[in-house]
């Protein structure tokens, strides 16, 4: 897997992956996730939706493909889901919890 540091805006074709341990550590508890950014010494709490999206940012699928899977699973319009996924992904990248693949 090749990881890039390109910081231009995300596109639906972007593939993201969690930054690896020990840079980022996380634990899931009762459907929510607590993520610790070791370098930034910051701790983040992801709600249940955020936790679901976090688990899908595993470096194997583009944001568009991830959105399509979620839209199909939850019976929601794909464009609407893509907007939500892009917003979440942008936020995760802004706080340095994920990095781009490829």
């Amino acid at each position, binding site marked *: 897997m090749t990881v890039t540091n390109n910081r231009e805006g995300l596109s639906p074709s972007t593939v993201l992956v969690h930054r690896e*341990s*020990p840079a980022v*550590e*996380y*634990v*899931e*508890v*009762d459907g*929510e*996730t*607590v993520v*610790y950014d*070791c370098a930034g010494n910051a*701790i983040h*709490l992801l709600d249940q939706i955020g936790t679901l999206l976090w688990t899908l940012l595993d470096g194997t699928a583009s944001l568009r493909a991830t959105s399509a899977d979620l839209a199909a699973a939850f019976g929601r319009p794909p464009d609407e889901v893509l907007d939500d996924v892009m917003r979440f992904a942008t936020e995760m990248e802004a706080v340095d919890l994920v990095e781009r693949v490829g």
Partner: protein
Amino acid sequence: MSIIVQTDIAAPRPLPQRHTPCLSRLTARRPWGPTLALRVGCWQVGVRANSAAAAEQVSALFAGARTPELDDRVPANFSVEIAGSTDSTGSRSRGLHLVYRDHEIVARRHEPGDLLLDLADLLDEIGNAERCDLLAVRAAAVVRSNQQVLLLPASWHAALLPHQARLARDGLDLLPARSHLVDGAAAQVVASTLRRRGVQPGQRLDICLWGLRVLTEHRCTLRPAEVVQLGFSTLANVDALRPRPALDGLAGLARRVPALGLPQLSSRSAVPALRELLLHA
């Protein structure tokens, strides 16, 4: 009485000392005795006292941790000043017994025995920060007569302290507001500083409630993930323990122990607030 200090097998390092003009003045102001070396976790810690009697007490109290062969090689990290000892000017010192960490006063007591137990707590604190097997949780702690522990925001300690005797009459022991060793998976406090309350070192006490400081005006229930998030900032040993085991330990604790978000407390409302908490625990 003798204090058991946690030791490990790694080669100990001298605990760094902050060299400041204030420390130089403190050193010049009193007739300090020789510095006594103690091993605390992975550290060699130096303790000096302003009287031979006090030095003897320190030596006896921490006999199990003494490393006299290093006495001349450790910095004076802690200075124990017992009032009533004669200082270099021949005058009597103040009627308050003090412990300094470097140049800073970190304990003050009217009873020398209490002061030395404070010193034991301070040394425990240094050892706890190096522990890599248990969570070192900074918290106020109250032990009920049934030996269950309530962990409370560290800031609550100051509000509860004036009521310590009243709490004791209710069967509640208020412990020092320092770090407490917690086994997250078992939701238990592992006694270290608790020993002087009739609890043996290593004994485990169940945690019945964990109260964490929140910025709201009212008490609130916390979700387990919120407990992990807030609890992380109370840990004194993240560096030694590493973040992942720390998160796992906190998650274990959050799943097993009821947790509440607690606002800041005034001394006036401290006892009623604690009594109300006990109804939840």
